[in-house]
């Protein structure tokens, strides 16, 4: 039966899906995979980076006080290279760039995570509905998806953020609107593959409605692949959020990595050769994106046994 669907994703699921009717095996599988994940160098380092970054975000209020970020209360020299007390130098107003970067972790992570969550919810819903119902609904939804794929992402996000007004909410919406298409296509393909399997037919024969089939039968099989793509998507979202904030579309009173770069550019730090103002937020973005990408790749390897044997 599965052979009739020539889809790579299908083969992945067929091989990785746990045997039915034996729930404890699923948990055993989970433990096996966790061990597998942490023994891989990519998984281990990715996870380590994320633990450090998320820890920094959570404990930022203990390290940096609001007064350190208030331009009217700081007393540092203006646009100064690293010196005692300011390990990463100061910005135009005399604030410590290290403090700004630490505080910026919060906003950058939150925006990236929420935008990804929104992307995944929208993409999964559309993909699931399109894949399950098929026919004209699928065609219509996929036409819309194709239309969004054809639109250039960054200009669309910029115009959306401009229309919605500045702020984190509009950045989150702009990212979600421009990046749900990949997830939708992936989930649709996966749904098509799973729908063709006997247990789904069995559920239908027993009288399960569309809603129940989608929720109880198909969704659990789709979740692993969604988890992997969303981990990779977080990296994209954080990068997009930083880009849009850098372009001046973020909340102006918020400190994020993108906004630090934005003020650095606006105040001419590039000409001034103020590398300490430009490099730290850039490196922070790089590290977080690297962390999520490493984790995503490791998860992908575990969930897709084909790449595992190739390794």
């Amino acid at each position: 039966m599965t052979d009739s669907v020539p889809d790579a994703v299908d083969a992945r699921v067929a091989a990785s899906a746990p045997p039915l009717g034996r729930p404890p095996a699923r948990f055993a599988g989970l433990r096996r995979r966790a061990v597998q994940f942490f023994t891989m160098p990519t998984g281990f380092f990715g996870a380590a980076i994320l633990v450090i970054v998320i820890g920094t975000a959570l404990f930022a209020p203990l390290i940096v006080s609001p007064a350190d970020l208030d331009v009217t209360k700081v007393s540092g020299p203006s646009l100064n290279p690293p010196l005692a007390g300011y390990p990463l130098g100061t910005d135009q107003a005399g604030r410590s760039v290290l403090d700004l970067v630490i505080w910026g972790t919060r906003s950058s992570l939150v925006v990236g995570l929420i935008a990804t969550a929104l992307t995944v919810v929208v993409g999964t819903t559309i993909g699931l509905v399109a894949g399950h119902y098929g026919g004209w609904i699928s065609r219509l939804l996929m036409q819309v998806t194709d239309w969004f794929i054809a639109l250039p992402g960054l200009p669309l996000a910029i115009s959306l953020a401009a229309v919605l007004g500045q702020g984190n909410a509009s950045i989150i919406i702009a990212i979600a609107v421009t990046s749900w298409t990949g997830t939708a296509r992936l989930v649709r393909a996966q749904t098509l593959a799973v729908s063709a399997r006997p247990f789904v037919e069995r559920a239908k024969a027993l009288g399960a409605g569309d809603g129940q089939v989608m929720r109880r039968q198909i969704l659990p099989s789709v979740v692993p692949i969604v988890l992997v793509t969303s981990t990779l998507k977080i990296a994209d979202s954080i990068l997009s959020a930083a880009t849009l904030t850098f372009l001046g579309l973020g909340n102006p009173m918020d400190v994020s990595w993108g906004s630090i770069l934005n003020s650095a550019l606006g105040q001419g730090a590039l000409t001034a050769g103020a590398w300490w103002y430009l490099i730290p937020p850039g490196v922070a973005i790089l590290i977080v994106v690297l962390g999520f990408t490493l984790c995503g790749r490791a998860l992908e390897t575990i969930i897709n046994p084909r790449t595992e044997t190739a390794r």
Partner: protein
Amino acid sequence: MAGSNRRLVRRVAAAAASVLCVAALALGGLAPAASAASESTLIVQGASFKSNFNPWTSYVEGDKYINTNIYPSLTYLDENQKPAPYLADSWSTSSDGLTWTFKIHTGLKWSDGQPLTAKDAAWTYNLLMTNKTAATSNGALVTQFDKVTAPDDATLVIQTKVPVADMLFTNAAGGSQPGIPIVPQHIWESKVNDLAADSNLTIPVVGYGPWTLTDYKANQYATLTANKDFFLGGPKYDKLIYQQYNTPDAAVAALRSGQLNVAGMTPAQRTALQGDPNITTYSVLGSLFLSIEVNRGAKTKSGKAIGTGNPLLADPAIRDAINFGIDRDTLVKKVLDGGGVASAAFLPPQYIDNWQPADKDKVTFDPAKANQLLDDAGYKKAADGYRVDAKTGKQLAFRLGTHSDSAQDAQVADYFVPWMKDIGIKITLEPMSFSLLNENLAKGDWDMLFDRWGTGPNPTYLLSTQTCATLPDEDGKNGNTDSFFCNPEFDKLYALQSTQVDAGARMQTIQQMVNILYTSGNNLILFYANGLSGVTTNQTKNYMIGTVNSDGNYPPQNAFLNWRSAEPVATADDSSTNVWLIVGIIVVVVVVVGGAGTVLIRRKRSSTDVKE
């Protein structure tokens, strides 16, 4: 064998083609260098322009800078900001001050060879006075004109309804508000019915001035060609490119690499460029203020309230408290790096004889006093530190519109928001595009806004934006108000100053007007920033005009003079070494590629010979 031969031929052809390509590229790179030797080009960073070179309707600063250099005016502003003879060689006024007679310079020709006479000037003024579209840009400057005639080719007579104090200024080329441009009648006569749609983009544009517009690309650049015979002294350069840059760093990078000769900059960039031997940076006395406008209750001409402004701002206690909560000296020190004047006056200090308010009215940074004012007015602080209006139970929370593309707005807001928090006022920033901000302003949909405006030595236009006449109509349109200010006493003084031909008396009136605005708290002026610019002095000399004052500042600059005064620095040796370098590279490329090709062909041939 035949097949491999064909392949070889193809290969040799490809090698030859690549040599030609390299040579063409090198020659392409050579072309500007070669022309630079014969033709000098000055490249200046342009203010934003829309490429509307229609002198009747253009209002964007960048377009006006071009227009003032391609169309003549009766006078121009000299380096001391005083009107000097341009098209008008001399002038006289009647004893009642109502008739001005200008002697027009004779023997001039428009760029298409037709004679330029007083008739063109009279036609221009009459169209401005009678045609609504023609009056779009400069109509406000001729509202007091009664009749303009040209009795002969060398005489222009302007009769006015009341004495006009600023006649010589409103007709002057080159200021930050360039005067009325005079256009060729024979070109524009046929276009009168279609003025609004005409962007005047037939190249070259027929005009008269130090320059002729010969090329442009909308929102990118405009090219001006020098009129070497210009009767006040032609430009030293042959060509001028007015180029727009979107970020300050891009412009300064271009300046550093010598691709741009003149650029504006931020204080941090100026500091960074101080060690560059090729670039000299200049500070120019500021005539542009940055302010925070306060909506005290937007009203139309008939007094109907419009917009969504917060009614609490109508309370003078709140406006005064905000004013006392701002530390202007810190802004100048931190945001401007010391390059500017902290002033709360509506006109630049140098144009109001350094007027100072009476001691009792003086605004200083005094948060304690601000808090006291608000406490006395009954706005008590709630648990979160923000004050609440006891009557309505509403928080003292206001919106502040900022220009989203302005780094300076963002920097000042970084200080303003915590200062307001200290006195219990909550500020929410609303960054907007320039056009959206001005739309909201006109509709009264705002609480506070950042505002940037400046004036030349004649403040009539800027002062007019505070008169009742500039309030919008019933439908919220046709307004040009600064911030919905309307005060009958101010209007009376405004009318008076515009008729005071005696400069001393006029200055006194203007100072009284500035005082009214100072105490009204509708536009909280923060500072006048010095203009910073850099010139590649290894390529260009004499760009700046005037003499540096004791604070190290140049007087306000003026494109009409700067662009004519600039002179190329001779760099003959440079370009010739470039030429030889490129020729050398071509020779080397030809030898190496040709040699390699020959070896390749030989080897192939021998190998095929062996095979067969």
